[in-house]
């Protein structure tokens, strides 16, 4: 049986080598590309990314990839947005100007405020391992994270977090100080995860394996 083909969008933000390697490690045939036709026709698309929302959308527009990525969703194919990639799935972010995202999942992207943890101000970015928990009972069944335990620990590194319009789109959350952070979101075949599955050891690989093979 042929290896599942996954297309990873290279819009020049962040370390894509690790995403590619992790997917290959899970047995997928991975193509990292900026080619709009290849991206538009992808059955499984990964939107990685680390950095700023505005710069990311600018880069995507400059590379003329906006429509190609949209058409993957329109064709009812799978998309996995990772970290910044997850944030781009939403309507937009109003930090440092008004930036529009893809609007696949209704909601916006907010900046973290400093709150307290262990009597000291919360450090921003949120960097480190943190547990993910189901947003409601059994909601993980038949999803990319159906094999996770409650509190499965994943690696986060971000300064912004999502604010969902519809709680039905929330699969999993994590806690950081007083903040509740949406850690896995999903609408149809479009998934987003705030953490980096390619940097979360065997737990992350478990999720990527599901994305590759299911």
């Amino acid at each position: 049986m042929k290896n599942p083909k996954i297309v990873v969008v290279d819009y020049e933000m962040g370390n894509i080598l690790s995403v590619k390697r992790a997917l290959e490690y899970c047995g997928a045939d991975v193509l990292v590309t900026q080619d709009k036709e290849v991206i538009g026709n992808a059955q499984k698309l990964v939107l990685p990314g680390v950095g700023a929302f505005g710069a990311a959308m600018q880069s995507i527009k400059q590379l003329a990839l906006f429509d190609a990525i949209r058409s993957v969703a329109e064709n009812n194919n799978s998309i996995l947005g990772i970290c910044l990639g997850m944030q781009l799935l939403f309507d937009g972010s109003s930090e440092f100007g008004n930036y529009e995202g893809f609007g696949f999942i209704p909601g916006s992207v907010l900046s973290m405020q400093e709150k307290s943890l262990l009597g000291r101000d919360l450090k921003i970015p949120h960097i480190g391992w943190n547990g993910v928990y189901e947003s409601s009972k059994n909601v993980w069944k038949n999803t990319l994270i159906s094999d996770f335990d409650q509190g499965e620990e994943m690696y986060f590194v971000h300064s912004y977090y999502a604010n969902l319009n519809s709680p039905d789109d929330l699969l999993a959350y994590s806690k950081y100080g007083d903040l509740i952070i949406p850690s896995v979101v999903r609408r149809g075949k479009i998934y987003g995860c705030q953490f980096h599955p390619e940097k979360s050891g065997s737990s992350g690989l478990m999720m990527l394996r599901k994305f590759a093979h299911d």
Partner: protein
Amino acid sequence: MRIIARLDIKGENLIKGIHLEGLRVIGPPAEYAMNYYLDGVDELIYMDSVASLYGRNHLADIIQEAARDIFIPITVGGGIRSESDAFNILRSGADKVAVNTAAVFNPQLISRIANKYGSQCMVLSIEARKVGENRWEVLTENGREKTGLDVVAWARQAVEMGAGEILLTSVDMEGTRKGFDFELTNAVTSVVSVPVIASGGFGCAQHLVDVVVSGGASGVAIADAFHYGRVKTKVLREACFQANIPVRKYEKS
């Protein structure tokens, strides 16, 4: 709280610097890195310890190999002089770059790297030497050169310019096994809102607790205690649980 293994590299070898003078070869970095990954360290830091002598960071090959089957965050430092150095390192598979000397001589480099790749990729590395009561000086060239710069003021400035994390090494405590310099750590964590990783001086689990509770460290970098097998991450995690310090549970599967 993150437990980070620090690998100092010379050429192809993992080495241990003794107070940053004199080097002892320990072995192949790939083997040690994989063991730490399997033991459950939270991140890896690779420092090119002779880069400033030879002008450039030469860790791209080692990082590329590590990125093949190690799936935790990797920070790389030593001899990163420019945006394009940073780009090459990130492209090889690193998640963050740690910059010291080049940033001190040209703080704009911090903003350029942070703007291009994100603050979370831009780690400021500080080598600190105590010079007075509650005062520390920034050293460059892997601890060989003095600058007269105040560590706390420099940390503050660098974070304003976009550094997303600080790797803070106490030159005085490094290699002593007597504990981290938690006063130094506290001095820096009190003035910046980004995570600070304490490095230099680890000897036992209690030191980790102290530098987190009294120093405000968000993580610790440990080198020879790991390399010489003096401690396993399980012991460190246990100490964190006892002290109510949030840390990854990690159970070997």
